[in-house]
């Protein structure tokens, strides 16, 4: 149990997908204008990553590995992810039209969000067990959501600031992201094992 908790913290904070691994930057910059849509995006991505991790684990261990179909891995994974995203899109459009509108193109683009495929491939690469894979995927997604929320909150405040013309818009957002990344370096080397 403790091991899973530590894995969760490690994936969410120490090896944060966005700020440390620099995956999933597209929605990170794209849907972080306000906290509600950022949170919605975080939830959608969490769902997709966790589902995709579970599905790809089964695919890998029950289909690809036994039959030696390793070369089809990316193809199959993308197929599964795309289906999961399609499903999420339908659910969001049905139950939260406002969020659907706010997320816009970034919702279908979760398919090509490198964080999703990246996390799925990493779990295969690390040869994790099923529960470990789930925790890893969920932890990564949690880290993504937390950072999205933080960043969106700061950008909301930034929208009210008198940013110099040269930095207004995207530039200051990138400066902000870099400073946030700087802050997350504090988690580097976090190690709960006895020294």
């Amino acid at each position, binding site marked *: 149990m403790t091991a899973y908790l530590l894995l969760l913290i490690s994936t969410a904070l120490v090896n944060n997908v966005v700020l440390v691994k620099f995956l999933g930057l597209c929605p990170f910059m794209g849907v972080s204008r306000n906290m509600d849509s950022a949170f919605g995006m975080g939830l959608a991505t969490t769902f997709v990553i966790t589902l995709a991790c579970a599905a790809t684990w089964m695919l890998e261990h029950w289909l690809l590995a036994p039959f030696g179909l390793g070369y089809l891995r990316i193809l199959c994974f993308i*197929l599964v992810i795309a289906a999961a995203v399609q499903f999420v899109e339908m659910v969001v459009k049905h139950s939260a039209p406002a969020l659907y509108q706010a997320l816009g193109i970034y919702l279908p683009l979760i398919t090509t969000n490198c964080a999703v495929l990246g996390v799925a491939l990493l779990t295969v690469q690390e040869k994790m067990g099923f529960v470990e894979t789930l925790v890893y995927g969920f932890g990564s997604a949690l880290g993504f959501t937390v950072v999205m929320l933080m960043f969106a909150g700061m950008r909301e405040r930034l929208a009210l600031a008198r940013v110099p013309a040269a930095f207004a818009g995207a530039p200051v957002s990138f400066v902000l992201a870099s400073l946030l990344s700087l802050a997350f370096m504090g988690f580097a080397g976090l190690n709960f094992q006895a020294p």
Partner: protein
Amino acid sequence: MLIAILSLTLLGAVLGLGLGLAARRFHVEGDPLVAQIEALMPGSNCGQCGFPGCPGAASAIAAGSAPVTACPPGGRALAKALAEKLGIAIDLGQVADAGPRIAAVAEEICIGCCRCIKVCPTDAIVGAAKQIHNVMREACTGCGNCVERCPTEAVTLQPVPVTLQHWVWPRPQLAGA
């Protein structure tokens, strides 16, 4: 090879079936956006935007083929509301808006031809043939149709005077804050 083809086919079929079922379960009717935009428009169907009335303009704006600044009577306020609805950023500075204006009839020039009455979308002009016409201020939307039709240039658009009831505190203009 065969296994690869089979497994991919199977995967595709299963996922497709699942999505098909989900699509049925989470079906959404139509596009509510056009109706929402139409509700924001002035609704006078004056035609200054170049579309056949407000519903036409609403669908064009929803489809993105017309800018949110297309409606002159709506002015800056409408453009801002539409931009918010559609989630796009606009530069409000480019929208010409001299504040609300309404039509006024210069009584000494009016010949009572009734042409303005016929084009007014809100029946805001009263009068009869050979009688001086008058504008009901509450009903006028300032669309300007009557100004174009008046043969003697007796109808003009005049800014609505500011009264104590309508006066709004100006936003503080500060250098530092």
